[in-house]
């Protein structure tokens, strides 16, 4: 479904992502794990068209995304939930969700995914008239995922959904990710929390200072002695 090949992202000469290639197949949950500063967010931004890659190609369902502006990448079926969530802070939960279905504004059933969103995150249904910036960190993450789902993506990209969230909600969000996959969506998730991420994903890539140092099925990565020592503290 998604093939990102040889992606390089630089910021004023500083290399953040150095020739990374990843692949996500339809129906998979793929995790890109790595420490702070490894280049995870830069990789997602390059795929989403929010940051221009210096080199490399991104193909989505066989189509080259080179030069496609970010808003059209969303329209083609890639939803991206960035690490700082980027909600519309002074708009209500309702308006944030409704804006998620903006591309379907001419359609009768524009709010069709709303049922699923409320099933996943019942708290959102209770807070429809609240401003987005009055929600807790976890609720904001739920809203960001909900808004992304309203764009009816085929691929959902999540940047550290567990960041800045109380532990109880972290489980809820990871649980939601698997539920979303079970509806037939494909998921690319980027995380520092390797353990939880490997638990829900099918395959994983480990990113270190801009390079892929390891990749394979999630169980294999979990069993790898280097990973156990470096990341899992075992």
């Amino acid at each position, binding site marked *: 479904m998604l093939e990102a090949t040889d992606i390089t992202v630089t910021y004023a000469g500083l290399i953040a992502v150095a020739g990374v290639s990843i692949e996500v197949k339809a129906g998979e949950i793929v995790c890109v794990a790595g420490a702070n500063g490894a280049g995870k967010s830069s990789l997602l931004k390059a795929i989403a068209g*929010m940051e221009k890659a210096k080199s490399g190609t991104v193909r989505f369902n066989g189509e080259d995304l080179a030069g496609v502006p970010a808003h059209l990448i969303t329209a083609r079926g890639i939803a991206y939930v960035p690490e700082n969530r980027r909600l*519309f802070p002074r*708009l209500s939960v309702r308006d944030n969700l409704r804006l998620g279905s*903006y591309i379907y504004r001419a359609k009768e059933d524009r709010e069709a995914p709303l049922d699923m969103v409320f099933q996943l995150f019942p708290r959102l249904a209770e807070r429809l008239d609240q401003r987005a910036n009055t929600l807790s960190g976890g609720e904001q993450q739920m809203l960001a995922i909900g808004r992304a789902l*309203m764009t009816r993506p085929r691929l959902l990209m999540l940047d550290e959904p567990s960041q800045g969230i109380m532990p109880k909600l972290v489980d809820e969000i990871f649980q939601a990710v698997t539920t979303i996959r079970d509806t037939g969506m494909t998921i690319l998730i980027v995380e520092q929390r390797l353990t939880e991420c490997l638990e829900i994903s099918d395959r994983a890539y480990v990113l270190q200072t801009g390079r892929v140092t390891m990749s394979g099925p999630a169980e294999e990565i979990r069993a790898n002695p280097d990973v156990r020592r470096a990341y899992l503290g075992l």
Partner: protein
Amino acid sequence: MTAAIVIQSLASGLLMGLLYGLIAVGLALIFGLMDVTNFAHGEFLMFAMYVTFFCFSFFAIDPLLASPIVAAALFVFGAVVYLGIVRFAMRARTNVGMVQIFATFGLAIVMRGLAQLLFTPDYRSIPHTWLGGKTVSMFGIYLPAPQLAGGAVSILAFAVLYVLIKKTDFGKALEATREDAGAVALVGIDKNKVFALGWGLGSALVGLAGAIMASFFYIYPDVGASFALIAYVTVALGGFGSVFGAFAGGIVVGLVEAMTAMVLPPSLKSVGIYAVYLLVVFFRPRGLFGSI
């Protein structure tokens, strides 16, 4: 001074204030949307007044009838100014603020120069309009019909704007872009399109004001300058970027101006506005209705 005279001048001040609001709202809209101050706003007004004048002199279209045409023309003009100039000014790598100021300021100078060249510095006016010279009397006060129509057009325009912003998808896209222009792509919105439409809408509103103004003000290349100054004060009073603050700010400016004219000689009629402006800046810098 009798009560009747006071009420009479407050009523005219109110009507003028409604127009000030309509003149200023485009400035507030664009500022709120993208933090860009259009220093050519007064020249947009001047341009709209000339378009109205030529509609009358070439095609004998009454200003009231021409107002939608002028608004449409200014809509296109505003969108083109964004797409052709402002968009590029915003891409500056360093000192974006300065580049934006000079871009719109430069546009103002060019527009004024072109107006001098093409239309001559002569003062023009539209000699006879449908409403010209007519007055309406209500409760013992007399109001000139063109100003009354202007006030009505302003209220109507603000009502339509309210519905557009609060009830339509375009309005939500506008609010979202205003909140975080970098994030609207996440929901499939093209921010450049919203910016262009925002410039179009803001310009159409000043176009509407220009059409009304042309029916009772002289039209000349520098006419925008003094009204632009009032528009900046109106926007500051209303709260920078607040569309409905501009409405209220305009009314305050109109009323204060009318009250000043009652007690001070005509040459000092602007003193009151600037005094209120200074008070607001000192004690409530975000404006009377600003929500920052």
